[in-house]
């Protein structure tokens, strides 16, 4: 018999002590448990084609073309709406993907091992900026880039990773947080650290110098290179905390562009969902909140694991996303201590006298204090294929935490 506080402590200790290592690159088909042909994984809680938002549909279309299951948009739409394609959340397969988060069987994926536990997590490769699948773009250049990543870059990276003993993503994140990253919207430092770790091994691969240069430039130019392995690392940490009897700790937060959903450690595999909201943020030239899609992506796994918006204090450079000041960045993190049960023992914040990041969201505290988690996020255009239009801040709807609390009360006869 365990009380709720003790259950939450047990869960958060597993989350904090998890040590995710990037151990290799494989394909979804070969690596991800339960992956099937004609199955597409997507971000967020479960959703059928008819309710999918523009960017998620766009990514689905692009993935079907990428897989060769459709030749063009109209074929892809027909296929997707025909019921033949099996749509499942990445989260149901120990995977996570940013924005639309679409992973198809042939896609290269990072394999992350929690070496302090027995769980693995997976994520796709980051495409960089501009017209990209994760924002729902599916033009020829998008597919071409995906193919280059899959066929050219992934094997080089796989060889480079295999040559070493894996990349300790927890250590990388800890260092990046001291270099101005928060691990979600700002991964500049982390991506350079990632490049630094891979570069010597990439240099030793057998491919041509031209390819080496392309790969190194691609990784170096993309300040989000490390976002996907970081997300998978956070997934490995969060999964380690899932399934603790009696715990009210949040172990997944994810959005599919239509709904925002959470899962809770002690409440099994149920999702608690409500309509996702439009982020508040800054927009690229020519765009405004009228162009924005509702919140989308699995990247909220970073906040779930105690970084991202929760570590805002370590990334004052990006507070201007919400017209903020460095003090606002501190306040953002201080506010998240209110709804979490622990301070991370590996991730610390110099600006707060090296206090650990607020880690482990307690559903009870969220509901009691009326404070929802802060999420830093990119903003997708609501139409398929346009791409990113801004970045900012969003919070999950309060009602999903209330639903979880009620479900807990029902389960335990309270």
């Amino acid at each position, binding site marked *: 018999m365990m*009380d709720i506080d003790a259950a939450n402590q047990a869960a958060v200790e597993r989350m904090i002590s998890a040590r995710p290592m990037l151990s290799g690159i494989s394909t979804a088909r070969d690596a991800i448990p339960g992956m099937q042909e004609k199955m597409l994984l997507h971000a967020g809680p479960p959703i059928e084609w008819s309710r999918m938002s523009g960017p998620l549909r766009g990514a689905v279309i692009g993935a079907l073309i990428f897989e060769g299951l459709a030749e063009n948009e109209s074929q892809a739409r027909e296929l997707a709406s025909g019921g033949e394609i099996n749509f499942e959340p990445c989260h149901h397969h120990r995977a996570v993907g940013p924005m639309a988060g679409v992973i198809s069987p042939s896609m290269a994926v990072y394999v992350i091992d929690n070496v302090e536990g027995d769980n693995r997590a997976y994520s796709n490769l980051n495409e960089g900026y501009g017209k990209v699948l994760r924002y729902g773009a599916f033009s020829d250049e998008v597919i071409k880039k995906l193919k280059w990543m899959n066929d050219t870059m992934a094997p080089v990276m796989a060889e480079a990773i295999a040559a070493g003993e894996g990349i300790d993503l927890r250590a990388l994140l800890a260092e990046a947080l001291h270099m101005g990253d928060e691990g979600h919207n700002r991964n500049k430092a982390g991506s350079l650290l990632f490049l630094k770790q891979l570069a010597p091994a990439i240099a030793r691969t057998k491919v041509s110098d031209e390819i080496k240069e392309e790969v190194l430039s691609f990784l170096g130019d993309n300040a989000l290179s490390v976002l996907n392995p970081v997300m998978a690392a956070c997934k490995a940490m969060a999964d380690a905390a899932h399934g603790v009897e009696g715990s009210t700790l949040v172990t997944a937060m994810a959005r599919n562009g239509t709904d925002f959903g959470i899962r809770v450690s002690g409440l099994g595999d149920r999702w608690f969902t409500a309509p996702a909201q439009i982020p508040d943020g*800054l927009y690229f030239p020519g765009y405004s909140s009228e162009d924005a899609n509702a919140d989308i992506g699995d990247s909220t796994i970073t906040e779930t694991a105690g970084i991202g918006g929760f570590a805002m204090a370590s990334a004052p450079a990006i507070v201007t996303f919400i*017209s903020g000041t460095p003090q606002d960045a501190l306040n953002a993190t201080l506010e998240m201590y209110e709804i979490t049960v622990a301070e991370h023992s590996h991730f610390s914040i110099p600006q707060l006298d090296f206090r650990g990041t607020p880690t482990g969201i307690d559903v009870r505290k969220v509901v009691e204090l009326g404070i929802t988690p802060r999420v830093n996020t990119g903003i997708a255009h609501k139409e398929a294929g346009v791409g990113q239009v801004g970045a900012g801040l969003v919070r999950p709807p309060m009602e999903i935490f209330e639903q979880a609390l009620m479900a807990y009360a029902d389960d335990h006869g309270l």
Partner: protein
Amino acid sequence: MTSIQHEIRRGAYYDSVVLMQLQRALLELQGVEDAGVVMATAANMELLEDSGLLVSGLEPRPEDLLIVVKATSELMANEALAQVDAILKHRRSSATDAYRPRSLESAIKALPEAAWVLISIPGRYAAAVARQALDHGKHVFLYSDNVTLEDEVELKTTARERGLLLMGPDCGTAIIDGVGFGFANHVRRGAIGLVGASGTGLQAISSTIHQLGQGISHALGTGGRDLKGEVGAITAHQGLDLLAQDADTQVIVIVSKPPDAEVAASLLAAARGTGKPTVIDFIGYAPPVGRFDNLIFTTSLHETARAAVERVAAGLDERARRRHGGQRRPGYLRGLFAGGTLAMEAVRGLQAFVGPIHTNLTVPGAIRLDDPLVSTGHTVLDLGEDVFTVGRLHPMIDNDLRIRRMRQEANDEHVSLLLLDVVLGEGAHPDPASELGPAIEDVRQHSGVEVGVLLVGTEEDPQDIDHQREILEAAGAHVTGDTISLVAFAAETLEPGGETQWPTVSSTALSAPVAGINVGLETFYDSLISQGAAAVHVDWRPPAGGDDRLMDILSKMKTSRPDTE
């Protein structure tokens, strides 16, 4: 005529979000239709092109800052570009935006040295926060009203068990180590310590003391219901103990509405136990006597302040005196009086200094005895009442009834003290001591009770008061000449009932530099800060947005354990 103007700043790096902010600011300027502020990377140039903001012929390098403004006229566009530096320099002041914790828990982390939590939120939520404060080992100043009596009793019982002070609920005023909580006047520090169930009473008395040239060591509020029987003056007792220990406090003042009888007795006993001159103003209460040992009774706030100041001036030579060396004992007293007025005066004194009195007399605050033939608890009987005198002589003449009743009472194992009056003079029994003396000796020896006698008369009376006193004293009685002295003897003989040893409130509650966490009225926080105390204000909101169902679940989740099914 729409115009697009641009500016290239070579090698000027800005974080993209600063640039987006700049862009937003430019869009707000008069005449500006669209604006683009980007580092001139290929991807960004493409964005500008898509937005129709690209000027042909530009060849910036990726590390250059490109600013493009589209406005209703060339003049407007150029004026907007001229604003860029001013906008970039603009920095909001951040000093005023310090984080305000939303929960008591995080406030405590922010100010761990805070010994006090000030609570002034709506009463329906206040008890839960007070309980949380006690759980964290904090003293509580509970300004909120509409806290239930059950909650008050529970909170104060918890506080007492943990050696913590809970002032309130509905406590308006306190001054701790010179720092006012809630509503408090600026009064100088001094030698007078206050305990009050009345906020404005404390304010009036402390202000008058200041005007009279003295000052306040500490002023402790108790809340208006503390001196009710259900609460038992838990906070007032703790406050008295603190002021008794406090070296700065030379004189104590207690101000309250009239307390319930048993509460008055225990509180006055505690006040006597402080050994410090204590001025008592139970507003509207008729004190049985003006002075009693170290206690001084007053009837107005002004008189109270004045009496306290005078006691400080008089110095510390008025310690409580022990009148006899007899051992204190548990048990009840039984007063068997021949004189109705003497009995009545005794009841009034005894209920103030000993405890609730059962009696066949009608006295405000006393408990009417159902059957005068059967005593219970502390009982005082007027044996001159008709029920006793029907068919026999008055007890001033005939001692027989009284002696039989003495034996009856002494045989009650719960009785440890008998009180009698002996009234001499013409018409009375010619030698009462000759009959009462042996009876006194007998009950003292066989039942172990103490006996106090109020002896009224003169040496010129036929019975000779000196002779009577000699006999009674020889029998072992403690003989006094006035009712209040008899009451004092009773109070000294009987052990105060119902007292249990609780952990004392640490004197650091009063002596440590005041640091407090404020939950509720922001003015209370501002006032702590302006008085130089360390303080944190909690940005409190009703839990779960005030939703009853969710609050109920949350409170169950705090106390219960989940099933392991």
